[in-house]
């Protein structure tokens, strides 16, 4: 049997332990019966190795190749437990026999390799104890209380078993301890089949803010002090004190001398600061200077600018806007009256109120000067809107003001603050409706009211009219004669001497007469304007108008120029100012110019300055605009060679008469 033999050979060489043992047995039997064994051995071997026959034998690569004979050869070797490397000849000195003796016993054990295993049998005591310990440790953290309880119970048990022998107690403890862990062991999670999940909530972002304040200011100070310095200081101080005592004996309080001058300075400053009234005059001068500087170009224009373009224009002229006067508190109040001061040519009065009878509010009386366009010179406010005003001719500080509530008040500019020095009341016979126009004639106030009465102040002269008066004007020379314009468009010529009768009635306009004015030169001529878009010039002896001008918008006011009998200005509610010179153009205005910015802004009044070639225009937003007339608008008749230019009222009258004759003739002819 070929496979059998190599096995034997291997066994002899010290192969695997199990088969080796067998072979040892077999060899022992072989030694007992040497020869007959061969077949039997093969039989036994056959029977035992039957299941391996199917397997292919794996030979180590370095196995010797042996012939049959060599394989059959037998080597007999006895295995003993003796260590072949152990020394055989150890001798030790024997004190008993007093000689060296070989030692018979030699340690045959040789350890080639040793490894301590850490595997424990689970069912063994040690294993159970270990698993119990591991479980306890796991439980200790989450449920300490239960462990403590368990310990307590153990303690109690131990206490109860005190008298028992220690070994028994230990046994009991050992027996008890592993039991509960075994129960809990099954609850352990499978370490390969569970997952942990963690999440983190949103963390608000951190922000660092820091600031540092400015450290308080510091200063260094150094000095040296010793006795003689102190002495010097005291002596110097005493000397100073003595000197000051000599100077001013009453004030001899010690030690605080150096503070006094400072205190005095302060008091002097304070006294200055308190009293503002002392510097009013200076402040006013400074204010004027500042204004003069600010509006220097306008002042230059006012004085010197003559529009050079007028040379090339035939007849037309222009209006150059100069200053604009406005005051914050009078912003929403319409200009209801303006009037130049007859004495101070740069001063004019503006009355503020409202023409909108649904929205009546307060009024304001302001006096401006051309020298200070930024702020009014005098300010006075009233509860009722101002409707008209006039300045006394001989006493230019006296102002008569008519109010919407029917009252008339006299203001005296000499008495400040500006308050009415006389005011009519219900008791003294005021009107119940707005006072439309008043005029200071000598010292009497004549006023006109919507009621339809004209009243002369102290004497109480009343004229009954049929309509409602809106405007009136006294004749310049004939002081009893006056004209009254009414709401329904009629103009009445009246006299102070008759209370109940009119001298004449002019069927002048279709709508309210806004203004009537006598010509300053020609005694017979007056002008009227109305909301029916027209301006008419009349001879008070003739019932039909001399001239009619249609201005395409309601005419708010009309005024004669003071320098010429033929020049007048009219303002219309569409924001235009019209200047006429009849001697140049009898049919059209020689200047028609929009002078206020917005369309909504209506011009309400116009006035010529008595001296300078300027006009002031008031609108319903509370602004007053000053405009300069260009040379063409104040052109005098051309000088003829060798002929002296005549001037004076006569010339002016003649000029106007000449014009009137042209118009009058065709009108008069049918009468003749």
């Amino acid at each position: 049997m070929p496979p059998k033999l190599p096995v034997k050979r291997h066994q002899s060489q010290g192969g695997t332990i199990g088969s080796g043992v067998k072979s040892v047995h077999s060899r022992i039997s072989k030694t007992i019966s040497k020869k007959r064994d061969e077949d039997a051995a093969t039989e036994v071997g056959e029977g035992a190795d039957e299941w391996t026959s199917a397997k292919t034998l794996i030979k180590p690569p370095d196995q010797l190749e042996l012939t049959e004979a060599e394989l059959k050869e037998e080597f007999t070797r006895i295995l003993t437990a003796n260590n072949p490397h152990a020394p055989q000849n150890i001798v030790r000195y024997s004190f008993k026999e007093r000689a060296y003796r070989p030692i018979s016993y030699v340690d045959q054990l040789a350890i080639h390799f040793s490894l301590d295993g850490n595997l424990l049998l689970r069912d063994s005591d040690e294993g159970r104890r270990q698993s119990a310990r591991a479980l306890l440790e796991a439980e200790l953290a989450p449920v300490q209380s239960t462990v403590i309880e368990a310990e307590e119970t153990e303690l109690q048990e131990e206490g109860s078993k005190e008298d028992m022998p220690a070994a028994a107690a230990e046994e009991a403890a050992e027996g008890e301890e592993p039991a509960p862990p075994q129960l809990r062991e099954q609850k352990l999670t499978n370490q390969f089949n569970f997952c942990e999940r963690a999440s983190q909530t949103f963390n608000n972002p951190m922000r660092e803010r820091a600031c540092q304040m400015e450290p308080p200011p510091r200063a260094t100070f150094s000095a040296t002090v010793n006795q003689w310095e102190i002495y010097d200081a005291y002596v110097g101080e005493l000397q100073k004190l003595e000197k000051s005592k000599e100077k001013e004996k009453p004030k001899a309080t010690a030690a605080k001398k150096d503070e006094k001058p400072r205190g005095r300075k302060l008091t002097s400053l304070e006294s200055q600061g308190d009293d503002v009234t002392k510097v009013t005059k200076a402040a006013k001068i400074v204010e004027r200077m500042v204004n003069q500087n600010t509006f220097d170009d306008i002042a230059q224009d006012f004085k010197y600018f003559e529009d050079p373009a007028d040379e090339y224009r035939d007849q037309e002229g222009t209006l150059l806007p100069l200053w604009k006067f406005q005051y914050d508190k009078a912003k929403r109040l319409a200009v209801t009256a303006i009037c130049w001061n007859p004495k101070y040519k740069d001063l004019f009065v503006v009355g503020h109120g409202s023409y909108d009878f649904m929205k009546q509010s307060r009024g304001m009386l302001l006096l401006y000067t051309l020298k200070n366009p930024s702020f009014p010179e005098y300010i006075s406010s009233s509860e009722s809107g101002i409707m008209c005003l006039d300045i006394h001719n001989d006493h230019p500080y006296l102002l008569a003001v008519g109010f919407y509530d029917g009252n008339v008040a006299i203001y005296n500019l000499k008495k400040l603050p500006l308050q009415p020095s006389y005011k009519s009341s219900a008791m003294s016979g005021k009107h119940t409706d707005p006072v439309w126009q008043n005029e200071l004639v000598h010292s009497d106030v004549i006023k006109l009211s919507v009621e339809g009465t004209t009243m002369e102040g102290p004497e109480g002269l009343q004229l009954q009219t049929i309509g409602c008066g809106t405007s009136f004007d006294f004749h310049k020379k004939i002081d009893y004669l006056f004209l009254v314009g009414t709401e329904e468009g009629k103009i009445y010529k009246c006299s102070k001497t008759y209370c109940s009768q009119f001298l004449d009635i002019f069927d002048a306009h279709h709508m309210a007469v806004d203004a009537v004015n006598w010509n300053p030169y020609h005694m017979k001529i007056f002008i009227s304007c109305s909301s029916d878009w027209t301006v008419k010039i009349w001879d008070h002896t003739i019932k039909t108008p001399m001239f009619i001008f249609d201005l395409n918008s309601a005419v708010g006011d009309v005024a004669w120029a003071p320098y010429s009998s033929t020049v007048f200005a009219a303002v219309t509610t569409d924001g235009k100012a019209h200047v006429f010179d009849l001697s140049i153009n009898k049919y059209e205005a020689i200047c028609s110019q929009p002078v206020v910015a917005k369309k909504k802004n209506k011009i309400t009044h116009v006035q010529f300055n008595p001296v300078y070639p300027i006009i002031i225009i008031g609108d319903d937003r509370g602004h007053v605009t000053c405009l300069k007339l260009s040379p063409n608008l104040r052109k005098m008749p051309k000088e003829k060679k060798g002929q002296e230019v005549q001037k004076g009222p006569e010339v002016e009258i003649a000029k106007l008469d000449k014009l009137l004759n042209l118009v009058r003739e065709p009108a008069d002819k049918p009468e003749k």
Partner: protein
Amino acid sequence: MADTGEGKKEEADYKRLHSFPLIRHTDMPEEMRVEAMELCVTACEKYATNNESAAKMIKETMDKKFGSSWHVVIGEGFGFEITHEVKNLLYMFFGGSLAVCVWKCS
């Protein structure tokens, strides 16, 4: 330098005349200065023989009244260079022989 004073009368005169508080330098506001000066006078009179106690008293009182970190030096002769918060320095002489420097610096 002034009179070469001799004799006890001169000495007494000197003591009497030179006993008032003399402010050499200060930048304190009026109210504070008056208060600090009075405090220094009080402290120096109370502890006439013990400058240390006087300085301690001044320092503690000033700390209470005007906030912490006050420093006080009292002596008959010394030199110094200090950094102080402005409006918080008083340097004065008192009693003819004492110099007091009070300042605040935190």
